[in-house]
């Protein structure tokens, strides 16, 4: 089974918390919607293969798109959630430095407010969902490996991040 991956902020997804707003109603904290903010009623996710062989490459290029070195948090969940919520999906070209990885981009289209909030609930309560983090040290390794594998070049990074990675590569 392939997975959908959405970049999030783990601090907003206290799935392991003993208490959180809405728990008694099987609801989720409203702050999770910040990680599902739509543009033109669309949302971006990425497809990760069942063996997760493309996960690190994806992490490398998604981290490389940012302005500074930092942790990267993500939610990994079953693609079947979209079908359950009748969300229309379409494979479209992603917008990262790694042109090959861009083909793993999936757009969620024509989203309604209910679908987005239901998506947050499904992600939270699905037994297969994983909320994970790679630390900045791990992110550094992913970016450096991607540069060494020629997935993108050091000088394509944002100046602040480029400076940090350059020092780490020495």
């Amino acid at each position, binding site marked *: 089974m392939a997975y959908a991956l959405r970049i999030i*902020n*783990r*601090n907003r997804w*206290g799935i*392991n918390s003993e208490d959180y707003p809405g728990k008694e109603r099987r609801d989720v904290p409203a702050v999770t919607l*910040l990680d599902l903010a739509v543009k033109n009623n669309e949302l971006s996710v990425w497809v990760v293969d069942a063996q997760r062989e493309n996960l690190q490459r994806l992490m490398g290029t998604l*981290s490389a798109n*940012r*302005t*500074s*070195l*930092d*942790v*990267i*948090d993500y939610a990994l969940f079953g693609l079947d959630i979209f079908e359950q919520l009748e969300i229309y999906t379409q494979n479209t070209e992603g917008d990262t430095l790694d042109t090959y990885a861009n083909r793993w981009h999936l757009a969620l289209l024509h989203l309604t407010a209910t679908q987005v909030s239901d998506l947050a609930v499904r992600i939270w309560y699905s037994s297969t969902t994983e909320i994970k*983090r*790679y*630390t*900045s*040290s*791990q992110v550094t390794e992913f970016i450096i490996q991607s540069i060494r594998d020629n997935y993108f070049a050091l000088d394509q990074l944002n100046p*602040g*991040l480029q400076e940090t990675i350059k020092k780490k590569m020495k």
Partner: protein
Amino acid sequence: MSVMSVKTGSLLGSLFLFGAMRLNQAQSVPESTAIIKNDRVVENRRISTKAVKDAFDHARSIQFENGMDNEFRRQLINIISDYEAAGVEAIRHLVDNRSTDPEVASMALRYLGAIDHPATYRQRLFVLLHTLKHRLPIVRDGAVLGLDFLGEPEAINDLASALNNEHDIDVREDMQAVLAQLRG
């Protein structure tokens, strides 16, 4: 205004120096602090504690996004660049303050570790180690992530000890990841 002259040849010696400064200040934010370089006092600087507090207050309205620059991060860089040890101490004071927003405190610690400023390395390391015992998991997590940026192997024992006492699953995961990295 007190001026301290302490030998700073070792990491532990420097950490002791910073600890002594903290005790003398009895939980008040210092308005002046001796800047010590190469074992000698070279400068005393005054810091606007209000400016630091304002930075923390304004940060409450920021939606922090991992890896994306923001005004708070830039302000902390400037505070440390301008005020060095006094700036770090002012930040520590606000992180410890119960009225500080926990997410802001957490991000401040993360940035404290990420900032490239060798002159305050020991002070920042001290603050991050000290904050591993903070009462809130999100703040302890910020300290762990700050230590990951510093990459200082001397932190291994403190971090391992903190891991033994840590009950929060997410913080434990981060501690384990950072410990693995530091142990190489």
